[in-house]
Every structure is written in C-alpha cells, then in structure tokens.
C-alpha cells in the first residue's frame, strides 16, 4: 500500500513547479511530439481482427439464422431470396461481431471499412444484395499510418502504400454437421421442423398407431439435403433433434 503524502506548497516548490511546467511547454513548442493522424489525407492501419462493416458470402451461407438470433441489437434480419440471407441495418448495428463469430461456415466476414457517413437513415438498412461486396468508400488518403512503439518514444510510421480494406476470410474450424433425430419415437408430429427447414429435408410420416408407447409419428431427416443449419433442432418442442458432426 502506498500512502500518498499531502502535497507541499511552499514558495520554492511552487516556483520549481512553475519552471517545470513552462519548461515542458517550451520544449514541446520547440520540438513537438506530434501524434496526429491527419485523417482525410491519411488512414490508420487497423489490424485484421478489426471489427468493421460486414461482408457476406452468399455461397457459404446455410440460412441458419444464428446471426439474426444472436444480434443483441436485432440489426440483422433475414431476407428470403432463394434461401434466407441476412440483411444488416447499420442504423442499429453495434459492431460487436457476435454474428461473425456465430457463423458456423464463415459466410460473414469483417472488413476494415468503418468511416461511412449516411445521408439518410433508410439508406443504412442494407439488404443482402448490398452487403455481398465490400462497399466502395470515399478515400482521400495518400498514405497509411501505423503506431510504432519503441522503448523511449512512440511515433507514427507513415507509409505511402495504401492499405487494402478487405480482410481475407479466415477458415472456421467448425466441422460440417447434419441434423439427426435421437428419439424418433417421441415425435409428436407437430411438423414445425419440417416446415421450418429451408431445404425441405425433413419428413414427418404418420404411422399406424399400432406400436405401443409410440406417438404415431416418425421423423426422417434426409441427410444428403441437410445443410446442418440447426433450425429444426432449435424449433423442436420435444428437443429430440441434434446436430451431429459428420466426416473427419
């Protein structure tokens, strides 16, 4: 524990402090430690993990709704094209990138675009069509700036080359998964899973109620059509569906 002394204010000490303060200011005035990034003319180089505008890759998307459901601001809402794809409302987006981390296939990726001013709020509600490509922003900069630290001082490194705002997609380590039913006999035949499945991969068939204990329905997942989105798993009121990993 450090117990701080009460500050002394005798005239000698005060004069010394005056001198120190003036000395510091004069030193800076003569040789300034300037650290300004002159933004429109220069751009900070942000690391690859920077959380900026989101770029969407339609090919990888399995319409699993995870991004829409994890979004704390409800900024992502799915739109139905040939499949359900996310659209982002940047008027709500808080750039937490929970969606990017939630995406099991890496269809959502970050970018270093962050400095955009919109003229109207309607324009900020971007549909899937608009987020599929990196937005082209107004760039006035002639160089990039990076903070460089050495032990004695720290300064800005300026480089003439311009930074690419695109971030290469990182592979996701999640393995491919398929839905399967762990207790087909418990199915109550509500057909919620079959109706919610974007691939129509689930069939619920009615059995003749002959077997004892059975509910009279059987649930079949056609694995070759299943993309592993897990919507059925989350929809099932009986929780008898699971996502299981397939392959290596």
């Amino acid at each position, binding site marked *: 524990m450090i117990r701080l002394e009460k500050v002394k204010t005798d005239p000698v000490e005060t004069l010394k402090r005056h001198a120190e303060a003036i000395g510091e200011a004069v030193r800076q005035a003569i040789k300034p430690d300037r650290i300004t990034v002159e933004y429109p003319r220069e751009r900070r180089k942000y690391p690859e993990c*920077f959380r900026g505008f989101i770029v969407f890759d339609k090919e990888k998307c399995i319409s699993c709704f*995870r991004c829409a459901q*994890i979004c704390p601001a409800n900024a992502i809402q799915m739109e139905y094209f040939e499949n359900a794809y996310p659209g982002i409302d940047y008027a709500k987006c808080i750039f937490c990138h*929970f969606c990017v981390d939630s995406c099991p*296939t890496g269809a959502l990726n970050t970018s270093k675009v962050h400095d955009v001013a919109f003229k109207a709020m309607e324009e900020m509600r971007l549909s899937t069509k608009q987020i599929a490509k990196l937005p082209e922003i107004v760039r006035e900069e002639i160089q990039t700036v990076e903070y460089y630290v050495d032990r*004695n001082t*720290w300064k800005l490194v300026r480089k003439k080359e311009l930074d690419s705002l695109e971030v290469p997609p990182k592979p996701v380590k999640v393995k491919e998964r398929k839905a399967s039913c762990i207790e087909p006999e418990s199915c109550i035949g509500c057909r919620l899973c079959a109706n919610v499945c974007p691939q129509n991969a689930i069939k619920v068939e009615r059995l003749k109620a002959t077997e004892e204990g059975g509910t009279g329905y059987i649930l079949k997942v056609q694995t070759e059509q299943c993309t592993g989105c897990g919507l059925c798993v989350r929809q099932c009121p009986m929780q008898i569906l699971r996502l299981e990993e397939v392959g290596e």
Partner: protein
Amino acid sequence: MEEYAIDIPVEPPKELRSLFIPIPPDYVEDVYKSDDFLVLVGPQHPGSGHMRLIVRVKGDIIQEVIPDPGYVHRSMEKLAENRLYIQNIPLVERPAIMDAPNFNLGYIRAIEEALDIEVPERAKYIRTMLAELGRVGTHLYDAAILAVFMGHTTGFMYPFGLRELICEALVRVTGARFTSSFIIPGGVRRDVDDSTFKWIYDMTLAMERRLKSFERIFVKNPTVIARLKDVGVLTKEEAIKYGVVGPFLRASGVEYDVRKVEPYEVYDELAWDMPVSDAGDGYSRLLVRVNEVGQSLSVVRQCIKQMPEGRVISDQIAEKGEDIRGSFYDSLYDLVLPSGEYTTLTEGARGTIIYSIISDGESNVPYRVRIVTPGWLYLRGFMESMKGERLADLQAIYGSFGYFPPEADR
C-alpha cells in the same frame, strides 16, 4: 461579518417553471426570498456532462446542490431482462465504454460463479490485462475531463493522446477501440498472439515516459494544485457514510479495493500496491488515480511476462477447439443459470461495480439484472462535497470525481 439584507421584493423567474425543473416551486420561492441565487448548470453547459446540477448559491458560496440525473438513462436493466445472457454482454459495457473490460468482466464473473465455470489461466491473464488497460484508459479520460474543466487544454490533450495508445492496444487485441465485448463466459473470444503482447509491453514503457510530460505540465502544475487542494474535502467518515467508492474512497483514507479485498482473476498473483491518501480533497483524488495508472501499467507488464500457454476458453463452454469462432452461438446462446441470486463486486476504474443477477433456473434470459455503477454510488458523496465551496469549484470537484453520467444513469 455582519450581513446586510436589502429589502427588495424578488420574484422567482418564470422560466424555471417552463423548463422542467424537478424541484418543487416552493423551494424556488424560498431560494429567492432568502436572497440566494439558483444556478442551473447543464445539461448543455461547457462545464458539465449530460446532467443538470441545480446549485443554490449565497454570494459565491454553494449552499446546496440538487442533482437532476437521468439524461442518459437508457433503460439498461429492463433491456437486460429481455435478452439472452450472452446478448447482454455488449449491453452491460455501455454504461462506461472507456471502462468496457471491467464492466464486462463483472457481468461475466456473475455468470461464471453461477455456472461454476473454471476459466483457463491464460484467459484469466488476458482478462486482467484488458481490465487494467481499461482502468488506465478511464483514469486518463477522467484526468483529461478534469483538466478541461479547469481550462487546461493541454492537460486535456495529453491524456487523450495517451488514450490513443490504449485504444490501439484494445484494437489489436479485441478488434474494437472501445467496446471490446471480448470477455465471454468461460474465457475470452480469441487468443492473442505474442507480437501483440510485445507491442503492448513496449507501449506501457513508452506511455510511462510520456506520462512524465503530463505530470510536469498538469499534475504538478501550481495552478492545478491551487485549484484542487483543500477543495471538495470528504473526510473518511463522510466518505463511508455516503458510500463513496473506488479511488475516491481511497483518496479519503479508506483502504478498500475489491481487487485486494476479494481478489478475482489473477490479482492475488501479481505484485501491485493500492495508493491511499488521507487528505480527501480534489487533489488527492487526482493523485490517487495518477498513482493507480502507474500500478496498472505495471500489472499489465506482469501479466504479459507471466502469460501462461494454453487455451483461452474453458472446455465447459467450447468442448472442441480453442477458438470460439464459428461455434459462438451454439456454445453460448442457451446458458441457463441455476436459480438464485448471484452478486459480484468488481473494481472498475471509478469504483465498485455491482452486478446482481437473479435467475429463475429455467429461462435463458435473466429474471432480473441489477447493475449498480460506481457513478451512481458516489453521486451522493459528490453532491455533499460541494457544499460550502465556491461556485467556481463546482467544475473542479466535478472533474476530480470523474463523474460520467452515462455510467451513473445506465
């Protein structure tokens, strides 16, 4: 000294009625009859944040200050009851975005305590490092605001220049300048590579050197000392009585720091000291925090030096793989806390942050989340400390408390 009263009938100004003033009209009348003067400071005032202070002055001496908070009340506690546990992570850091890691950490610790999650060592060290970076950043922010409240623009610019480094460090680790949302139940979102750690290590050293400039021009500036010394004094007894927290409590001589009292993460494994001052005035509040910045930078360095290898996310959360990327939703959306109340104390930069999560044991949304922020806790002490000071001291005391309305209002 004899007081002279001039018997001129004074009418309370009419505009006080049309403006929304939360004090009763007879109070206003009483003020005007007793020859006092009401000064409304804020919410749009160059020397106040987003709150209104209704100051009753007699001459130049403040008689009473009535706070009018809530200008940034964003209904956080209600919203937290309507979202998944995991979705609340960005929400709970919004009260004070410069102190996001600490606010985040308190909430996550409450969840982890409920679910008995064992956090890997490496994650603990990264969390501690982030929390301390947040603390440094917040103290610098508050020092800057204090400086600008006293008209010292250089004292404003230097800490914000240094904060750029903190932001850069946070960007390199988490990807965002302020609101990192990096700490999740069971660990952290991503592993951090060695080059980033080295950058941060060097940064702390470079920062200490620049902090000396700041000390010479602001902290030890005679005008600053003159403005803050013996101003807004809270004695030890008063500080305890009004429930002041954090560095402001320590400035009044109470040796209380949650990191020492109830150590969490890896604070008990690191060597650091708790600065305490007995004066309880504005200057000691500044000085305690300046000293804490030094301590925190040393903690950051120790964290990086002792950083163990291993996973950054507990296997109770992510069974396979070290990275939460891709399985974030599946691992975390369905957290259901066992029934009960889970209260954690966390030492944020401005003081004790209390999270009290009440779960009903069946839902994956909390039944009630109570967030008590340091700003809200020391507001009373802050108001009391202004009594009897001069009107010009209001800003100095305001700054010395680093009062941040979004934090207090939530």
